[in-house]
């Protein structure tokens, strides 16, 4: 199966550097401090943020707040029906990656001895799940009004015969295709997450990183517009 056709199109008709449609909604969950729903093409993620609150004593940090993240996927999110939505090796790894990434994004020193819980659920997984979770979490944190260094945006980028392709679908996420998930703050050169799948030649690193960086900047533009629109919509409620 060829990922890029002879005319330069991908399996779903996109160009190699073209991202899928991004649709978002904020503030869906009334019980949470902040929540978001994000679609990257057919990848659909729901995210809720609770806190900051005085968390468990075992997780409490004296100088900053603890970030606790739970990544889960619905049992019907992929082609294979899963037995359990969370707790498996992959979900645990994803949770840790999100935790570590957002520890660098949130101004954790502003909330000592407290805890912020982030719940990400992939409702439908069609590739770039981690990137979609990062983007959804950024919006949910913005909705919760938690101070951050900036909105984090993420993108997955692969390389086919030396040419980068961005925002991969599940059909493109094969066992052999090297792919990097990169998250940056405000689309700038501030990297908070790098995750590599499969082996990537060192000579291709610059190409992949440049493409991923450019895509993160594009995604950031989308997220920033959503956050600003949401803020404008909330202005009458807030009395501004």
């Amino acid at each position: 199966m060829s990922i890029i056709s002879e005319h330069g199109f991908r399996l779903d008709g996109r160009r190699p550097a073209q991202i899928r449609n991004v649709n978002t909604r904020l503030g869906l969950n009334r019980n949470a401090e902040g929540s978001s729903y994000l679609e990257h093409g057919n990848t659909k993620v729901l995210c809720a943020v609770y806190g900051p609150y005085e968390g468990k004593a075992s997780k409490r940090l004296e100088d900053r707040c603890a970030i606790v993240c739970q990544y889960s996927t619905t049992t019907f999110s992929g082609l294979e029906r899963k037995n359990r939505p969370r707790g498996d090796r992959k979900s645990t790894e994803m949770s840790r990656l999100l935790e570590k990434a957002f520890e660098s994004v949130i101004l954790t020193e502003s909330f000592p001895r407290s805890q912020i819980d982030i719940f990400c659920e992939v409702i439908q997984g069609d590739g770039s799940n981690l990137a979609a979770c990062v983007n959804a979490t950024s919006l949910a944190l913005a909705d919760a009004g938690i101070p951050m260094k900036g909105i984090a945006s993420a993108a997955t980028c692969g390389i086919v015969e030396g040419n980068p392709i961005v925002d991969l679908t599940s059909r493109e996420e094969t066992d052999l295709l090297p792919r990097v998930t990169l998250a940056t703050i405000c689309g700038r050169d501030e990297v908070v997450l790098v995750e590599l799948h499969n082996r990537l030649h060192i000579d291709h690193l610059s190409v992949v990183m440049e493409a991923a960086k450019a895509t993160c900047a594009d995604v950031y533009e989308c997220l920033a517009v959503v956050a600003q629109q949401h803020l404008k919509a909330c202005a009458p409620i807030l009395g501004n």
Partner: protein
Amino acid sequence: MSSEVLRGIDPLGYLTTFFREGVFPDGRGLLDEQKLVFKQGECGGVGSSVVSTQGVTVSCTIEASVSLVSDGQLINIQIEPSQQLSEKEAEDFNNLLLPLFTNGSFILRENLRCLDVNGKALPLEWQFLITVKVLCLEGNLLDAVVCAIGAALADTKLPSIVLNHSEGDESAIEKSQIQADYGTIHKLILEEPLMCCSFGVFVDNDSKKKSEILLMTPDIEATSVCRATCSVVIGKGDRIALVRERGRITSFSLLKKMCQITAERRHKLVEALRTA
């Protein structure tokens, strides 16, 4: 005020003084490599090793068992938690290392087939349980663990298998039909060794430029003042097998530099093993 007092009161200021001069407090250059010592075959199992580097000492033991050919996972890693390594961290490292086996960076799956006395592949596969024990943890664990697993796999000696089950027989293979013959020993066919290097990114806030300083294999004290840490694993054909980044890096060129340093170090190791 003595330097030890300053070190206790203001570790950041103490370390910054050294990093500005381009050295660690022990006199090592910021991008100088540290000594790596390993010993094979001392911890039982079919293969084992003890590795000591950068203040970290780990032992690795491989236990083998035989199973029928399947698509299942053949290698399981277990990093045992200790006083210095929590259960959560140990689980993180397990999850991190497992893809190095599934993507064939250490060993290819076809090289785990059981062989008979004549070296012919049988419809059986070796299953490995790799147990890593942390004896001392004063630096980055990943560097030592990757090296220890590589050394233990290189030390692994597997017996020939005698299978008393004819090829045309369609009945299931019974446990009693499989016997190990320790008279003929086979060594594993491994991929080229992997090299893991850990780096710290230190930001000098007092300088005008607020430049990022790259530190190679920082110890725990230096890591605590770093804004970001990154571990890179490079394997055969200069292919990056793993990147683990924690914290915030503001320069993409640093990531590339880390990969290049690791690749160069790996070349040196391969050359050293070839000439040894």
